[in-house]
């Protein structure tokens, strides 16, 4: 089955991202396809490359990145939600005249159309949120 995943909550504050990650891992292990993981609302904070959790805790951002790199997952951060929360990649940072960027390279920034497209293309779109 072809799955799309929507993550609507930030890391650590809420379990949504953990549950989405575990779901994605389990689905891939069963041979299913993950068409796209889309990060929306505070979920965009899952893409910060500056995240530093305590050493004995799970690293939610790096864990997503490792799964994505292993399975060539398309992980998309909503640009509108990211902008209003101070999340930007190198290109966007330059465009906005900012002096830093913070999006992990395993994620990419794009529009909400990518979420709607996932809804159209996938057999199931699974929402993880509050």
């Amino acid at each position, binding site marked *: 089955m072809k799955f799309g995943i*929507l993550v*609507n909550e930030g890391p650590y504050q809420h379990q949504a991202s953990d549950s989405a990650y575990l779901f994605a891992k389990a689905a891939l292990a069963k041979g299913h396809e993950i068409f796209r993981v889309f990060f*929306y*609302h505070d979920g965009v904070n899952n893409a910060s490359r500056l995240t530093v959790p305590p050493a004995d805790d799970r690293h939610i951002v790096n864990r997503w990145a490792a799964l994505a790199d292993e399975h060539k997952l398309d992980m998309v951060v909503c*640009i*509108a*939600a990211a*902008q209003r929360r101070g999340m930007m990649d190198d290109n966007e940072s330059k465009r906005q005249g900012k002096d830093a960027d913070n999006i992990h390279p395993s994620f990419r920034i*794009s*529009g*909400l*159309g*990518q*979420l*709607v*497209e996932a*809804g*159209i*293309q996938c057999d199931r*779109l699974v*929402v993880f*949120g*509050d």
Partner: protein
Amino acid sequence: MSEEMDMEEGGTIKKFMFVNRKAPYGTIYALESLEVVLISAAFEQDVSLAFVDDGVYQLMKGINTDGIEMKSFAKTYRALEGYDIEKLYVDRESMEARGISEDDLIVDVQVVSAAEMADLMNEQDVVLSF
């Protein structure tokens, strides 16, 4: 919408339902839900909106956000018709529990029972819950 429109899909039309469960201004869910709704309309999908629990407050007449320094987006619900989004369903029990009647709402809606809402959800291809 600030983001660029993504390419259109090859004629696939799916039934999308957006389930709005949160009050309009305590959190950003309602506003960011509307942003996806408008994008999905641009993709010419079969879109419906459901309002349940505190989500029914999103459609209240006479909302004034001056005192909380937030932009009111109530008029966006009135504009949905222009995007061919005319299927708005409101959960009867949620309205009654909050002392709200249809006359209190800024747009024409269909008031449905929980059982009817369940049937409507069951008919959908994609259900996004915010």
